[in-house]
């Protein structure tokens, strides 16, 4: 028994991503088609060369038909995947395992979400008949609970923490401003964000992920076949996934200053990849900054900061483009936007660009002598979430 991982058995040979924005003129089908086109182009292969498909969407459609119909995929398997906001990463994980098992030679995972047809601001859950006792808070309000809890645990003034998380938004907007695919391309300052009206706890709208439509995809094959398709593939070093039990809403031991599922999935991923010192082995990371406090505590849960230190490291600029471990160099959910089913693969797109030296010059990270990238994608709320961690490298071994 064990989580053995599939280190170096599967290669990424193409990643594509469409601009994330309010695509009033594009349907879900358009996003699927444009996302697939970009992904095929990146891999330099045609749709016919793909043997099996995984389609991730949280709420925009159901079943493999939603992908097969618009792309006219004939006679091939298409699995529709859903796992909250980690849907895109989950689609990629399932596809990677299918290659690793030997079942298929070439696979594609595509994530797409059409969020803006709903008519409401923010993301909305689809209705499942219940007894009516379930909590109906927004995700923003749930994640807002981190701030007072974190301040209390580490004896900090809540205003200090509030400013630190605003610096995270400032950083991600700075990076997004240098990304032509991002939804929000305007820089903003932590001071401006702190002055905005609170909508959930201490959080303002600028502490929340952008709500955008979008699609992103990845094509993978066996590692030993990779060079047939691509001169500089990425190799999957680790894929980890943890689904919680909702313990945080049940167990008085949970204190809202950590995301346990994220820590567990990170630990598992590091073990799979053989990483013992993540902050000095990871070159760049894309993490799930759905709300600014999320990114703060993720720095600790992913091992990038010591517990209680993330706020100081953020203020120190450690995770900036020119910092010791750049995080969300593409703007993150905050600035790139968050089309739920596509976000995990959008993160992978940035890792694909950065590790292979293809990121636009204005947001290229400094060569820190490391060759590993990490994506972290979660779904749910503090205390009740799913978490994915993937690690990718340019070299085998």
């Amino acid at each position: 028994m064990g989580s053995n991982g599939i280190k170096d058995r599967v290669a990424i040979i193409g990643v594509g991503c469409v601009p994330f924005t309010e695509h009033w003129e594009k349907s879900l089908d358009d996003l699927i088609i444009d996302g697939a086109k970009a992904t095929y182009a990146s891999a330099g292969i045609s749709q016919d060369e793909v043997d099996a498909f995984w389609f991730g969407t949280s709420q925009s459609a159901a079943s493999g038909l939603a992908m097969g119909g618009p792309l006219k995929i004939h006679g091939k398997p298409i699995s529709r995947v859903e796992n909250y906001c980690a849907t895109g990463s989950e689609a990629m994980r399932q596809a990677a395992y299918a290659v690793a098992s030997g079942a298929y030679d070439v696979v594609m995972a595509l994530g797409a979400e059409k969020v803006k047809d709903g008519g409401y601001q923010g993301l909305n859950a689809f209705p499942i008949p219940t007894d009516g006792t379930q909590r109906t808070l927004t995700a923003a309000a749930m994640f807002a609970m981190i701030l007072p809890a974190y301040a209390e645990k580490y004896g900090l003034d809540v205003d200090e923490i509030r400013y630190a998380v605003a610096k995270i938004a400032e950083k991600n907007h700075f990076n997004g401003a240098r990304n032509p695919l991002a939804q929000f391309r305007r820089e903003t300052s932590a001071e401006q964000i702190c002055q905005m009206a609170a909508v959930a706890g201490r959080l303002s709208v600028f502490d929340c992920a952008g709500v955008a439509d979008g699609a992103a995809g990845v094509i993978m094959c066996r590692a030993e076949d990779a060079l047939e398709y691509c001169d500089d593939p990425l190799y999957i070093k680790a894929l980890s996934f943890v689904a919680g039990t909702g313990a945080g809403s049940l167990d008085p031991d949970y204190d809202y200053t950590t995301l346990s599922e994220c820590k567990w999935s990170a630990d598992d991923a590091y073990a799979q990849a053989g990483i013992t010192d993540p902050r000095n082995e990871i070159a760049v990371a894309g993490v799930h900054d759905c709300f600014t406090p999320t990114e703060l505590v993720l720095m600790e849960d992913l091992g990038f900061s010591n517990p209680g230190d993330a706020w100081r490291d953020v203020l120190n600029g450690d995770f900036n483009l020119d910092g010791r471990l750049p995080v969300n160099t593409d703007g993150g959910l905050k600035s790139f936007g968050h089309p739920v089913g596509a976000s995990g693969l959008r993160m992978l797109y940035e890792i694909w660009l950065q590790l292979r030296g293809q990121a636009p010059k204005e947001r290229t990270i400094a060569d820190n002598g490391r060759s590993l990238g990490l994506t972290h994608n979660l779904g749910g709320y503090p205390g009740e979430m799913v978490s994915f961690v993937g690690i990718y490298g340019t070299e085998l071994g």
Partner: protein
Amino acid sequence: MRGIIATGTHLPHRRLDRAAVAAFFGKGGGTGTRTVASFDEDTTTMGAEAARAAVASATGVDVDALWFATASPAYLEKTNASAIHATLRLDASVPAFDFGGAHRSGTGALRTALEAGPTTLVVASDSRDGLATSADESQGGDGAAALLIGDDTAGPVLAEFVGGASVTDEFLERWRVPGGDRSRTWEERFGEVVYAPLMEQAWTAALADTGLVADDIHTLVVVGTHARAVARNVGKLGVAAERIGNDLSESVGNTGTAHPLLVLAAAIETAGPGEAIAIMALADGVDVLVVRTTEAIGSYTPARPVASQIAGGAPIDYAKFLSWRGMVAIEPPNRPLPNRPSAAAAHRRDDWKFGFVGSRDRSSGMVHLPPARVSEKGGAVDDMDEVPMADVHGTVVSFTVDKLVYSPSPPVVFAVVDFDGGGRVPLELTDVDADEVEVGMRVEPTFRRLFTADEIHNYFWKVRPVRGADR
């Protein structure tokens, strides 16, 4: 001996200063305050809170029947008493009946229970509305009262039923058609004149029935929605002015169906032993009920006394009052309306949804809210005991104010609550101002209506701060 074994009342936390009406509209209102049901309360939830207080005041007494009366039912056709029955976790063999429609149904249910029968919890609840500036708006009140009625074999009787009288007359003084948003009344003088002889007749008959004379009455409280008929005629009954009890009109307002029970509860809670208390209620006739307190009153401690609830409470501004009553429609957050709960899913979880019952794992002792079959700690399967949580206090360990989510009255204040003795659940905080919430605040469960969707009222529990006035 048969009589009242326990009292339980519920006065909503919010109070409208009647002067606010004239300050806004230039007319209407008056002096004093009225109680205002929260946006998440209705006659069923208020009745449930009063019923819980009565049951908590009579530890060890079994309720054999539950009667519920209101002129403002949350549902028609469907019984509302069954929801109260579920919050009290009464056995399925205990009948729950609604007495509805007329204000007089509260007094009628009480009288019927006092005369004979099983140990009966009589619950009356009402919410009084009127158009802005109307007398009903300012003189009405919201609240509920529950009286546990039984023989002294069931439990110590605080106030023995001595007797009474009812006089009935058909006349059109106050009326409302089903679905109507306000009540109509005939010209005021008519009621004043019609009620006068009815009051006298009922009073004379009640004294004859009880074998008492007016001087034997320690406290008489006269209530009625026709305030002028009460005020002009009460002096004609031969009871000294100092023995006319407080009708709570200055602080609570007239709570309609609930009011005779409410003032009776208030009178009993402040009485000494051996006092004759008479309640006279004007509604399509006149009812008089006379009780006499016993020695048991000396050791009686109500769980939520009327007096402390009156002393507590917090103001509500008139704008919010108007929005809560649906008199002014406020722009809601631009979020989807909640979905209706599933009747089947709700029924499977009656114990949780209405009874607030969790489960405790026998091996680890961990409390699971909602109840679970598999333990979070240790993974034991189907090895749990029920844990009733409705009367357990808790502490806020974290909270958030959500201005984005749909609510009938934004913003939503949500708290993660750790209950004494184990158990955590995130719940909405109610009867609270967002800026008074803090980590460490002590809270207690309260039964509320979360929202209404597709004409289905979604009932569940929230928490409210434990106020100093409550035990």
